[in-house]
């Protein structure tokens, strides 16, 4: 049974990816200016590995720094929001509004404000990372076992003690779930922010390639960014397994 399950888990996606591949190649053969042959994309990486590595490095660095800021401030705010109802009611509408705003549209303004350096890209990545973690952290930090909380309260445990010994560990599963969404958003945000204001990074690579109709390069950069996101999610999942062992 388990054997069959494992097999399925590998075969099923392969079949779908296979079908997608055939569809892709058909388009690449018949509508040349839409998709390049898949082999060309792979060849791209072989041709200029350092080029892709460099640009990935820039994007990834912005994404990770942005994630650190966005996720950090989201968790911090969530903590404060759990303790101060006022803050909760104050922040949520603003966070909601931020979440429904197309950040890409604001990225030019950020470049104007912060110049041609990593800052605007990091800000976009942070903003993108912020919301999913805020919501998850809030849920996680609020959803503590009521009876365990009673045990702490009956011992007159301080707020800090309740936080460190109950709230924080209880919220870890939610925090990791949020982090997975958040790091993907940060990566996508980082790529999209590079559509303007820089000539480095996967986003800039995509734009340049689009301008010059270099489809292989464009798709190579798109896939590279998608795969990197998956790897990042994988790393967070691994960290989760290491941390949450109960």
């Amino acid at each position, binding site marked *: 049974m388990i054997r069959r399950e494992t097999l399925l888990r590998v075969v099923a996606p392969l079949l779908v990816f296979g079908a997608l591949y055939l569809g892709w190649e058909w388009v690449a053969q018949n509508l040349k200016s839409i998709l390049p042959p898949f082999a060309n994309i792979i060849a791209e990486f072989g041709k200029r590995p350092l080029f892709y590595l460099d640009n990935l490095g820039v994007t990834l660095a912005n994404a990770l720094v942005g994630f650190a800021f966005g996720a950090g401030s989201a968790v911090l705010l969530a903590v404060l929001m759990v303790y101060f109802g006022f803050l909760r009611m104050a922040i949520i509408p603003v966070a909601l509004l931020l979440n429904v705003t197309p950040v890409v549209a604001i990225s030019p303004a950020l470049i104007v404000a912060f110049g041609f350096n990593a800052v605007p890209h990091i800000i976009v990545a942070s903003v993108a990372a912020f919301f999913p973690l805020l919501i998850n952290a809030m849920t996680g930090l609020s959803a503590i076992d009521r009876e*365990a909380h*009673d*045990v702490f*309260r*009956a*011992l*007159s445990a*301080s707020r800090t003690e309740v936080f460190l*010994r*109950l709230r924080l560990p209880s919220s870890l599963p939610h925090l990791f779930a949020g982090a997975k969404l958040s790091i993907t958003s940060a990566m996508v945000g980082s790529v999209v922010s590079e559509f303007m204001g820089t000539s480095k990074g996967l986003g800039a690579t995509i734009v340049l390639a689009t301008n010059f109709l270099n489809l292989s390069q464009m798709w190579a950069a798109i896939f590279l960014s998608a795969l990197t996101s998956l790897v990042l999610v994988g790393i967070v999942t691994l960290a989760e397994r290491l941390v949450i062992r109960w």
Partner: protein
Amino acid sequence: MNTSLGAAAPTGAIVIDQVSKTFDRGDDVVRALVDVNLTFQEGTFVTLFGPSGCGKTTLLRILAGLEEMTAGTVSLFGETPAQAARAKNVAWVPQSAALLPWLSIRSNILLSQFVNRAADRMPAGDRKRIPEDPDKVLAELGLADFAHARPAQLSGGMRQRAAIARGFVQGAPLMLMDEPFSALDELTREAIRLRLLDVWEKNRKTVVFVTHSAPEAVLLSDKVVVMTPRPGRVHRVVDIDLPRPRSRAILESAAFIDKVREVQSILREGWEADE
């Protein structure tokens, strides 16, 4: 009903005096407790017994300082519930074990030492608490082999025993237990009941215990407080004068069975009077 269990109410006693509690529920008001008066001497095993909603949990939470009373006063060996909680003088054993899943059983039962250190620095004279050796308690409750296990690796009954161990390790003079066995099946429940009886008879802390089960109440208690709901009142306090130490054998004795029947019929009588 005004029920007083002792003429004097010295420092060494628990005195519940005219305690009432109402909850606001939207526009509604729920009278959970009305004019409760009770006094217990130190070292008594008291059981609050009554149907669902009669305010057992509410009364217990007031004693633990988890809930404010609307009227009345409570003295726990001379301290208010808040003071007692601040000095870690009350051990709370909740309905579910409420162990922390990320800690080993041993760390879980040491919880009282990890938090509220200020209480540990109180002048020795003020301290009413004598923390117990965790390993001894684990052994007494049959958990010695599971000291380093995680809660998820234990059965429900073992988890519940760990929660009781956590209470004992705290060493507080007053232990409050809210239906600690209600999630367990009958046989496990019987076994753990006898364990509790055994350990308690060795150290004789003051215990206020809540249950729905008449045999459980009679087996464990010195006094059974029979309550009635809507609003929650003390209907009668029944003295359980069965000899101690008690053992499984007592379950078969006529005196025990009579006492159970008496408690049940008092409960039913309070319930019917109320309907």
